[in-house]
């Protein structure tokens, strides 16, 4: 990128700048015409000049001018108008000029605005493009938030300046020069005085502005660092809380803000000082005119008329001059910003754009074999991490890399993955330098996975298929206005030097995933998810989510059918006691008393949460049946039990987890409540006390809490009241609750709840685990599993994938690579968070999976668990940056070398 902003602007907007200059020049004609017109109107028709005789007329629109050699040229001889007619005609001309001037202004402003916005788009894109082409080590020193604040905020004023970059100095300079020449023409000496003063202004003010520039640069850098620190606080919030360093962070931010304040305040002071000086210098000139010119006039050496003419001519000079100086200030300001940003975005080496050129059709295959040739790698400080390693990985080979912590094997894997660039030597593919091959070849031929996974904000599906999105393969179809819009997008992108690839197109390379289109993508994806043992997690995500039946036609019906199938399945497996179903006429012992009474999910505000206790209809039903008294007595016993059990425990005791119907803080309140009531019963209790007690009953589950309070009689009563509640329900409440209905899908409950339509018994520790496996196999047999997993794939991962656990992220990271067809898979300790048994299973399954179909890729796996080496054709042992041993696992064991030591330890 050019070092100077004006050059950059000129290079990219030359034609537009010239055009707008021309338009501005043309716009001057009506502008100056409109200056003269008011005088004509006042002097002519209003004051009567030229209309001295009654009935006198004047020629209007006489367009003629005299040219040298040609003499008088008359284009239109005009027509005669009376005084009133002339008044209206001239006023009309005035109105027309106003409109023309306005239109010119409108056109010029929009044109300049568009010019600026296009340039801003170009700069922003170029900056991001540079980021995409930076060498990997550049990112060790970059803070994301600082870079994004540069691209977002710091270049923004550049757009505003672009339109004025050339027009403004041309226009204002012209105006100032005209005024100065006019003065010079009136009186040479006074003119020279004015010129000298302008010269002083032009020399002194920019010099004083230098400090402003320094301060401006500081302001920019400190503000950018502030952005970086704020994002560090967000990213490191866990660490800050863990070490109680929040006040250190506060101090740091406060001191930064103090510095920024100081810089900005200095900036103001200087700015206004300069402004003051500038105004002073501008006013000094008329002072000299009055003082010296007046003296000379008194002496008789200067014509008074000339002096007045000079003074009146001078009033046109400071305006443009001031604006010109302001423009220069803006120019320097954006120049500083521009230089700053460009410096930040310059790197010694960047990836050649040709390496990243898009390959829409056939990218070509990766030349083989992959090899390190005399490869040395070093870290930022220059310490050697890998020394003069030469090794060749043949196609189809499976290679394990083992070694100690600083062995260097992981660095070799990074070099193969192009994450670390060689210090000396090189990595080659079929003899070509890997870094010079197009990324469309290396990025598809090689899949690299490490434990350091990054996920983009979006759904699980988007992230899983991310590695397939190399190029827009199938254009999106547009019709009508959207087609026109797409056309506009392409045109505008080209004008701003942006690529016009369509982000709405289908970018997924289905072939690379063993599919032909979106519909048959599921099977290969599922086998990958099974291999990394993630499908269960995704299924769980889906089962926990709620869906709208309208978005998934047919699924809701399938789920309802499945309820019956599940019953049968459980009975067959002798597990029918695992789930207690909801039955409209029966009490469900595994559900709370409240749930049994309501037998539905509250969906409106009238019956949700605390509101139900205040709902008049609900209270009348419960009160009429006398259930409120029974529940009160029951709640009283629960409170007694809870207080007896927990009164002595400190509030942070882990046992409180088990207390589901009240919190530790409630215990003292209930203690007081019990003392107040002293067993005097329902009638003596106040309204609030009653609801506090009855609340406890509502959350009671007999098999869980085991206080022995629920009798057959009471259960029957609750079911009876349930019936009354629904039978007599007023119409306005019908929308506020969704009743449990064995034949209907409930949109307010999760998929799992809809499938179970009941509660899992508390008697079995692994009840939910067992149910899950039954449900999974049933979903499989009913052919619903695809659709359910599909729902799980819609799960939004959150920022950086944080809504998944660390283990799930590692598995997804591995899956993302396995979905793609590659010639070389490089796994750099991809699963450190998993226990050994799981690692073992996944490594075996992955080695099997990558050979599916006709595939025979090479696999390079940096193992954290050396005992898995025997699963690979060949083992590379690294020690202290050197390749120490190379051979089959069996041969190396017999070698009595480092490998044997590693295996036996």
């Amino acid at each position, binding site marked *: 990128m050019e070092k100077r902003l004006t050059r950059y602007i000129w290079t990219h907007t030359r034609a537009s700048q010239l055009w707008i200059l021309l338009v501005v020049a043309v716009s001057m004609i009506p502008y100056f015409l409109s200056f003269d017109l008011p005088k004509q109107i006042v002097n002519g028709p209003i004051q009567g000049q030229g209309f001295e005789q009654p009935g006198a007329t004047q020629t209007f629109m006489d367009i003629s001018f005299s040219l040298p050699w040609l003499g008088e040229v008359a284009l239109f001889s005009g027509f005669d108008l009376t005084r009133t007619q002339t008044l209206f005609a001239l006023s009309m001309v005035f109105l027309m000029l106003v409109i023309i001037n306005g239109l010119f202004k409108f056109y010029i402003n929009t044109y300049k605005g568009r010019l600026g916005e296009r340039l801003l788009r170009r700069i922003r894109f170029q900056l991001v493009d540079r980021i995409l082409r930076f060498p990997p080590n550049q990112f060790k020193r970059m803070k994301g938030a600082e870079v994004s604040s540069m691209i977002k905020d710091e270049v923004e004023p550049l757009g505003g300046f672009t339109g004025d970059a050339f027009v403004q100095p041309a226009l204002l300079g012209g105006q100032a020069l005209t005024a100065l020449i006019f003065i010079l023409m009136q009186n040479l000496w006074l003119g020279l005085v004015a010129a000298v003063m302008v010269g002083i202004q032009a020399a002194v003010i920019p010099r004083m502005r230098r400090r402003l520039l320094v301060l401006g640069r500081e302001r920019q850098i400190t503000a950018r660092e502030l952005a970086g620190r704020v994002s560090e606080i967000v990213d490191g919030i866990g660490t800050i809380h863990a070490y109680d360093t929040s006040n250190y962070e506060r101090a740091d931010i406060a001191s930064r803000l103090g510095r920024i304040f100081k810089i900005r305040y200095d900036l103001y002071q200087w700015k206004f000082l300069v402004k003051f000086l500038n105004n002073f210098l501008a006013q000094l000139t008329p002072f000299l005119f009055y003082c010296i010119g007046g003296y000379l006039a008194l002496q008789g050496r200067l014509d008074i008329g000339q002096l007045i003419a000079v003074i009146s001519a001078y009033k046109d000079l400071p305006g443009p001059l001031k604006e010109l100086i302001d423009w220069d200030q803006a120019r320097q300001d954006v120049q500083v910003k521009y230089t700053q940003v460009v410096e930040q975005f310059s790197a010694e080496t960047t990836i050649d754009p040709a390496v990243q050129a898009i390959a829409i059709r056939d990218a070509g295959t990766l030349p083989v074999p992959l090899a390190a040739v005399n490869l040395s790698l070093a870290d930022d400080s220059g310490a050697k991490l890998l020394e003069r390693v030469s090794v060749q990985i043949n196609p189809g080979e499976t290679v394990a890399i083992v070694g100690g912590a600083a062995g260097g094997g992981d660095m070799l894997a990074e070099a193969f993955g192009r994450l670390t660039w060689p210090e000396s030597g090189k990595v080659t593919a079929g003899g070509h330098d890997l870094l010079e091959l197009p990324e469309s070849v290396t990025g598809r031929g090689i899949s690299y996975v490490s434990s350091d996974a990054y996920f983009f904000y979006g759904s699980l599906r988007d992230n899983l298929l991310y590695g397939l999105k190399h190029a827009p393969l199938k254009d999106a179809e547009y019709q009508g206005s959207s087609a026109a819009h797409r056309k506009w997008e392409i045109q505008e992108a080209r004008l701003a030097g942006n690529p016009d690839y369509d982000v709405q197109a289908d970018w997924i390379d289905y072939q690379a995933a063993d599919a032909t289109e979106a519909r048959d993508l599921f099977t290969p994806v599922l086998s990958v998810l099974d291999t990394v043992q993630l499908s269960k997690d995704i299924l769980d995500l889906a089962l926990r989510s709620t869906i709208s039946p309208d978005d998934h036609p047919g699924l809701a019906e399938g789920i309802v059918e499945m309820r019956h199938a599940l019953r049968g399945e459980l009975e067959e497996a*002798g597990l029918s*006691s695992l789930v*207690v179903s909801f039955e409209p006429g029966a009490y469900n*012992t595994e559900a709370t008393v409240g749930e049994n009474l309501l037998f539905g999910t509250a969906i409106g505000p009238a019956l949700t949460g605390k509101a139900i206790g205040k709902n008049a209809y609900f209270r009348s039903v419960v009160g009429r049946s006398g259930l409120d008294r029974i529940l009160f007595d029951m709640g009283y016993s629960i409170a007694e039990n809870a207080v*007896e*059990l*927990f009164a002595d*425990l400190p509030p942070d*005791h*882990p*046992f409180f*987890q*088990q207390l589901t119907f009240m919190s530790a803080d409630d215990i003292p309140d209930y203690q007081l409540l019990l003392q107040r009531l002293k067993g005097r019963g329902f009638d003596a209790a106040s309204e609030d006390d009653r609801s506090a007690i009855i609340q406890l009953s509502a959350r009671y589950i*007999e*098999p869980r*809490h*085991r*206080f*022995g309070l*629920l*009798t*057959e009689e009471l259960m029957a009563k609750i079911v009876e009241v349930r019936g009354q509640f629904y039978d007599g329900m007023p119409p306005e409440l019908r929308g506020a609750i969704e009743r449990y209905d064995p034949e209907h899908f409930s949109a307010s409950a999760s998929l799992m709840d809809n499938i179970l339509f009941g509660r899992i018994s*508390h*008697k*079995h*520790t692994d009840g939910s685990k067992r149910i899950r496996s039954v449900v999974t196999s049933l979903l499989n047999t009913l052919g619903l599993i695809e659709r359910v997993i599909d729902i799980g794939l819609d799960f939004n991962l959150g920022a950086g994938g944080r809504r998944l656990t660390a283990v799930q992220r590692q598995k997804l990271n591995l899956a993302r690579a396995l979905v793609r067809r590659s010639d070389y898979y490089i796994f750099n300790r991809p699963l450190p968070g998993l*226990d050994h*048994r799981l690692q073992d299973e996944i490594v075996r399954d992955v080695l099997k999976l990558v050979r599916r179909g006709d595939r025979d890729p090479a696999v390079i796996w940096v193992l954290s668990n050396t005992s898995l080496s025997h699963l690979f054709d060949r083992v590379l042992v690294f020690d202290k940056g050197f390749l120490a041993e190379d051979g089959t696992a069996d041969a190396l064991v017999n070698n009595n070398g480092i490998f044997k030591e590693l295996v036996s330890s």
Partner: protein
Amino acid sequence: MGMETVMLLKDEVQMLRRVPLFSNVEPGKLKLLAFTSDRVSYGVGEALFHQGDIGDAAYVVLAGKADILVDSSTGPVKIAEVETNSIVGEIAILCDVSRTATVQTTTALEALRIRKDHFLKLLTDFPEITIEIMRVLADRLSHTTSELTEARSRARSAD
């Protein structure tokens, strides 16, 4: 499901009192222990936990029997039996190691499942339980030591 199948807290307290480990703990505390534990039941041949799992709970067997099995190259080997009213699975949560053996029921079994954090809290709150646990562990150690000595002398005589 009727009332008669639900075991009540007060019955559990009675059963807990018969467990030697808790015999010295006052009934109020036993009730608390029972309340905060999960009541679990197993059929014949089901596993309470598997060797290699992460230990998250200890079990007090209220009724029924189970075998303690250890994986070997020739398959699982039974090394001991769990009796009614005894505690099992406490090693994994005390030492933070994965399960050292598999416990598999030989009859229908009823147990109280005490979660790890609850169990540790119990030890700090009630020294009498801690002492009892130490006694159980020491007992097992002396048992193991004598078996080891026996095995060694057998191995030596076989040489």
